[in-house]
């Protein structure tokens, strides 16, 4: 499939802005570096032409921004959605978090986004510029004279390697072709951890989570974490405050965070993408998804607007909490 280009998106955005379909555009804007593309609101064609960016680092899931951006909006907002973003989009609609009427959603095809950590692992630090040329990235660093050429497939983000769907489940207009739900191996890593002994798992997570600096980026980027007031910011929740205080350990923060989005998490992977410490936080969410799929039947949050998540429904025949652990023994 041909990759969609900045020019195509720019033309589409300009057209919809000019003909009055939308009053503003939620798109990717230039950040400090080529790879830290920033979600930006564009209000005119001129602003778009100057600032609109589309490259291999446009991973941000825009769905969450709609909650605040549509609240006081005159007219409609144009939002570009990759297939995985559309699941979050639907999930937020299920939760009545924004007004669908105020959004003009354009589905764009996606062949996967690059993970800057993986790029840096090849190129080293000090990246000055990254050029994009089809399926190649040209990385110029401060320390090397010659640009380094990297195949984009080598630096795909984990969530894109294990892409769960190329299908857009919501849009007003689709650019490119309709994709399909893909067969991914996204639960393999969870299964690998499950096969470990509890001590090994504890060591694994101790190692990962001890790096957490409680910056809250995972929460802030998560399209399921759109609470008006997060429990971790709320003095009357009893669990507020940050790590160094007399309160929850990182482990507990991350369990609560994952639990709060369980059944609502679409597995978009934003939590891991934004984590400055590269903690594989998506594994916690996937653990919940995998468990609930196995316990209560397949469920994909956001696949349909209005669907009922496993934790807010039940059957009289559900398995007992104690039986959860027999499962592995039966499989073995």
């Amino acid at each position, binding site marked *: 499939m041909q990759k969609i280009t900045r020019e195509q998106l720019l033309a589409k955005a300009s057209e919809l802005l000019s003909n009055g379909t939308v009053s503003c555009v939620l798109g990717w804007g230039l950040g400090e570096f080529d790879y830290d593309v920033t979600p930006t609101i564009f209000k005119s064609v001129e602003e778009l032409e100057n600032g609109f960016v589309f490259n291999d680092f446009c991973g941000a899931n825009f769905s969450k921004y709609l909650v605040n951006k549509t609240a006081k909006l005159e007219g409609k907002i144009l939002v570009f959605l990759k297939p995985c973003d559309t699941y979050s989009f639907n999930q937020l609609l299920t939760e009545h978090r924004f007004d669908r009427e105020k959004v003009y959603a354009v589905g764009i095809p996606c062949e996967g986004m690059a993970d800057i950590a993986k790029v840096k692992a090849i190129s080293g630090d000090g990246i000055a510029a990254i050029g994009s040329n089809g399926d190649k990235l040209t990385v110029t660093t401060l320390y090397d004279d010659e640009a380094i050429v990297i195949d984009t497939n080598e630096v795909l983000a984990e969530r894109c390697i294990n892409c769960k769907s190329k299908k857009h489940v919501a849009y007003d207009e689709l650019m490119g072709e309709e994709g399909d739900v893909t067969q991914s191996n996204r639960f393999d890593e969870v299964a690998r951890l499950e096969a470990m002994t509890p001590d090994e798992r504890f060591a694994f997570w101790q190692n990962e989570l001890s790096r957490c600096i409680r910056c809250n980026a995972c929460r802030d980027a998560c399209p399921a974490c759109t609470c008006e007031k997060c429990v971790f910011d709320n003095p009357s929740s009893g669990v507020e405050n940050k790590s160094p205080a007399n309160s929850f350990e990182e482990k507990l923060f991350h369990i609560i965070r994952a639990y709060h989005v369980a059944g609502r998490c679409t597995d978009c992977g934003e939590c891991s993408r934004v984590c400055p410490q590269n903690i594989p936080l998506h594994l916690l969410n996937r653990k919940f998804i995998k468990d609930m799929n196995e*316990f209560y039947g397949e469920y994909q949050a956001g696949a349909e607007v209005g669907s009922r998540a496993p934790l807010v429904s*039940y059957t009289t025949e559900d398995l007992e909490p104690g039986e959860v652990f027999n499962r592995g023994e039966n499989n073995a």
Partner: protein
Amino acid sequence: MQVNEYKPLIVAFCCNWCSYAGADLAGNNRLAYPADVKIIRVPCSCRVNPMFILRAFQRGADGVIICGCHPGDCHYTSGNYFTRRRMAALFSMLDFLGIEKERTRVEWVSAAEGAKFAATMNDFVQTVTALGENKRLEDLRCKK
């Protein structure tokens, strides 16, 4: 009695209608279980927020048990069905993080099952005692 013998700290959340009454019945029948078990009364097992369980572990509890009406007998018709799903997910997650799965339990105890209540608590205390202290979720900063 040995000095410094390890005594676990067990928090038991009991629903008001079945399990708390079951615990009362255990008392009426003088069915002994260790004093390590401390009961917190909640209206329904579905009132137990995972945060309460984690809080208990963080503050140094060695085991947490949730008792509710048998499925189908919930005073509020469906509360324990939600408990069942929530706790299945939570316990599985705790196990995923390497927390010993024996430290958490859900048990259905009716108001008539005083004997079951005492037996459950005896068994749970024994299991947790065998595991020893909860080190993996305890927050040392919470200790005075």
